[in-house]
């Protein structure tokens, strides 16, 4: 996305370029946020809930998200399940096959940290964030389909805060601040 960044920088320096940037950002972010197509990277138990989330009962299509098996047509990879050392290269390859801009949801404890398979095992990658940039983490073993839908709505907030120009990227609203060092408690979140 280097070309886009350079272009955005040039636009920033041109009088009136900011207006163009803002409006293009608004359209692009709105469109991307409402059309998050999923690459269902279901490997283990969480895949069942991933399937359930897009099926009749929970119906992901309501939010404009549909699962597409082809990585080239998708925007967000939902890593649902344990990633083993044998599987990791394939996941990475599929991630690289997805066109930018793309996002990643780590669904379930296995994808976050290895979860129940953290200790004593020799073949599990402890968290998909060891090799993929994860945007949203969903805890649970497995998380409920509603949690996955909430994750997509949270991701939409993150997408909305994005911009072509690095200087215009906004902080994401409505997210709990990380606890600071030395301070035992998190300062109350905005929610």
């Amino acid at each position: 996305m280097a070309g886009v960044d350079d272009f955005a920088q040039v636009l920033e320096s041109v009088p009136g370029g900011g207006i163009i940037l803002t409006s293009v950002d608004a359209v692009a972010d709105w469109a991307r946020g409402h059309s998050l197509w999923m690459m269902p990277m279901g490997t283990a138990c969480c895949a069942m809930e991933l399937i359930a989330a897009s099926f009749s009962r929970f119906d992901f299509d309501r939010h404009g998200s549909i699962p597409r098996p082809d990585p080239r047509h998708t925007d967000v990879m939902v890593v649902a399940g344990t990633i083993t050392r044998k599987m990791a290269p394939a996941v990475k390859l599929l991630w690289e096959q997805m066109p930018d801009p793309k996002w990643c949801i780590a669904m379930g404890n296995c994808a976050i940290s290895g979860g129940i398979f953290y200790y004593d095992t020799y073949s599990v990658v402890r968290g998909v964030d060891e090799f993929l940039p994860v945007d949203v983490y969903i805890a649970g073993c497995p998380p409920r389909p509603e949690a996955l839908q909430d994750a997509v709505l949270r991701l939409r907030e993150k997408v909305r805060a994005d911009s072509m120009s690095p200087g215009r990227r906004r902080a994401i609203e409505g997210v709990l601040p990380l606890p600071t060092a030395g301070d035992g408690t998190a300062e109350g979140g905005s929610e």
Partner: protein
Amino acid sequence: MSLVELREHLCATFPDLCPLFSIEFGDGVLQVGPERLHEAMEGLKTLGFDMLGMVTAVDFGEEFELVYRLRAREMGVAIIVRARLPRHTPRAASVTDLWPAADWHEREVYDLFGIVFEGHPDLRRILLPDDWVGHPLRKDYEDPSIIRRPDYR
């Protein structure tokens, strides 16, 4: 057929296997040496044990124990066959010629324990990647990536 009847049947057909047979935890068990494993399995197959349920191994330090579980559908009885292999030469005869089902099971045992099955048509790793070093289910398997669990119990 009960296990006692099975013992009688076995002793009548293969008298030399008779002393190796015992009954533990409600299972018929046949303990054979690795050199007689294939012969015993062949005998059991002619006896009517037509289904090979599983092949696995246990690491007992100096020795590996191969465990086969066979089932005879007609007789309605099952038997566990055990064979102890020395750790330094973990080799046994493959039973893929008797039960094709053994194919993947023996590959799995080879993969996880490093026991070589002689006569297996295609003995490769099955669960782990081909370039994996070591055999994880051995008790002395060391891997720097393993994080030992604190003793919570």
